[in-house]
């Protein structure tokens, strides 16, 4: 079977739903492909509140946010194909898709890649010791508990204090699992402060900062974990080992954008301009497949921008605009997009590598904003006017930096 569309969106999570909605609203014939049976992506298993404060001005849970976005998508009139996995992307442009209906060839004028992220697994952490059952990534544990109604174990330790780790500490505690603590290698928590308070302090769950796992114990099933304190360089301090008898270790150690089916098209990594358009002009990126975001509200907003841009590209085939490259300066760990289109408004998203109190964010000499407090867990959004992006166009590149006071 062969289908021809203007815009094909890969991934039915928040970014993909928002992109398909915006593309369809812009008049493009749009097809959304989702691997799972249901749309929503990771939102479906994020049953805790904290979503939608910006977009819907009220606090929703993940499934509720997904439901609203899906309703918007259905009204916009995009075609949805769930249970459809993208096998390959060819530069014709054409996608080879496996679905219940068989193999589908999708011809499209533009592609929005919104396939989300994968969790960093246990292997690459190179932790010494046994390899027993009982080690779960946080997202897997969340799916078992919240979708399938299964508990991963009876006594758990969590490695990594990102928001997913903190949320899972509370979730497991509420379901009767004894959570002995959360270990974090950095000297500060990885997740939002409100989650430290409402997920750990509320239930007396200890947070071990500057700690990591030194050893895994067990035969067929995990029997315990040894934690060790680390120094400023992240090296273990011998003599500080603590043993915890647990049958479950939950890993919340980072997310990796899922771009593997596109890797051959982007040998030097993915870079996008402020339309979220990549170096391959017909491919646009959105959501956690581009960069790991904190808030679904941001992901949906970027998804809409990527969808609108893809629709415009499909309809008008404009040449790829010349762009001003952005360069990460001091105290900038993450920055998207990577280039600005002069004369167009732009939203930059920036993450600092460590907590900073009182600092100024600068974009070359055309933008400066003072901040009282900046934290790695909270991305900062910078809005640049069309005039500002025109002014930046006189530079070979624009430096973005965070200068401590």
């Amino acid at each position, binding site marked *: 079977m062969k289908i021809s569309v203007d815009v094909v969106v890969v991934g039915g999570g928040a970014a993909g739903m928002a992109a398909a909605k915006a593309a369809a609203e812009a008049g493009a014939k749009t097809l959304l492909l989702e691997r799972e049976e249901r749309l929503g992506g990771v939102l*479906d298993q994020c049953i805790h509140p904290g979503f939608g404060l910006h977009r819907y001005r009220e606090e929703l*849970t993940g499934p509720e946010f997904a439901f609203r976005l899906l309703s918007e998508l259905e009204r916009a009139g995009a075609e949805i194909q769930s249970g459809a996995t993208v096998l390959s992307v060819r530069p014709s442009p054409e996608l080879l898709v496996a679905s219940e209906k068989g193999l589908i060839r999708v011809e499209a004028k533009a592609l929005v890649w919104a396939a989300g992220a994968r969790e960093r697994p246990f292997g690459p952490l190179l932790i010494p010791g046994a390899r027993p059952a009982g080690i779960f990534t946080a997202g897997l544990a969340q799916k078992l508990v919240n*979708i*399938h109604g299964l508990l991963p174990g009876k006594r758990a330790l969590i490695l990594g204090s990102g928001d997913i780790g903190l949320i899972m500490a509370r979730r497991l505690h509420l*379901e009767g699992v004894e959570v002995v603590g959360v270990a974090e290698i950095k000297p500060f928590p990885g997740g939002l*402060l409100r989650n430290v308070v*409402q997920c750990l302090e509320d239930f007396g769950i200890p947070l071990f900062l500057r700690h990591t796992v030194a050893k895994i114990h067990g035969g067929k099933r995990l029997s315990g974990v040894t934690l060790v304190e680390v120094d400023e360089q992240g090296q273990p301090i011998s003599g500080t080992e603590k043993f915890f008898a647990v049958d479950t270790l939950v890993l919340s150690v980072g997310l990796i954008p899922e771009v593997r089916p596109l890797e051959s098209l982007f040998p030097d990594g993915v870079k996008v301009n402020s339309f979220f358009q990549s170096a391959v002009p017909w491919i646009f990126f959105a959501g956690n497949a581009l960069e790991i975001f904190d808030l679904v509200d941001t992901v949906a907003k970027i998804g809409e921008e990527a969808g609108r841009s893809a629709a415009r590209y499909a309809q008008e085939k404009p040449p790829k605009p010349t762009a001003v490259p952005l360069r990460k300066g001091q105290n900038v760990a993450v920055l998207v997009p990577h280039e600005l289109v002069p004369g167009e408004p732009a939203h930059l998203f920036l993450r600092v590598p460590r907590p900073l109190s009182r600092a100024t964010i600068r974009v070359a000499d055309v933008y400066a904003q003072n901040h009282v407090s900046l934290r790695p867990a*909270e991305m900062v959004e910078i809005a640049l006017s069309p005039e500002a992006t025109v002014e930046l166009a006189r530079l070979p590149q624009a430096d973005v930096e965070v200068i401590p006071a």
Partner: protein
Amino acid sequence: MTREFPCVSCPLGCLLRVELKDGKIERIEGNRCPRGEAYAREEITDPKRVLATSVKVLGGDYPLVSVRTDRPIPKRLIPTIMEIVRGLRVKAPVEIGQVLVANLAGTGANLIATRRVLPRSEKAEELSRKGRA
């Protein structure tokens, strides 16, 4: 004693500092509006939370329906309410927003479904029967 916690009244998330003497509030700092002060007082005297969890569903396309309280409930009642929720069973279909328990444990808050659960399809029934056989 000083306690520090972020305000959750809006996305700004001011870092609130509350100075306590003999368990009484001496001073509240860090808030940028009156909502922050009210939140700080409540957080010290009787903190409230929206509780989100799930309830078992009979005959649904999901084994669980995710639920939450439709307003914050006193934190101290969370263990009691979890006990009530654990014993609950609802029959599919469940509609998003449907009230599953009204006036939960006398709090005035309702327990509402946060997703739609449809009745399990015949095809799924058949697969599940085959699985068991």
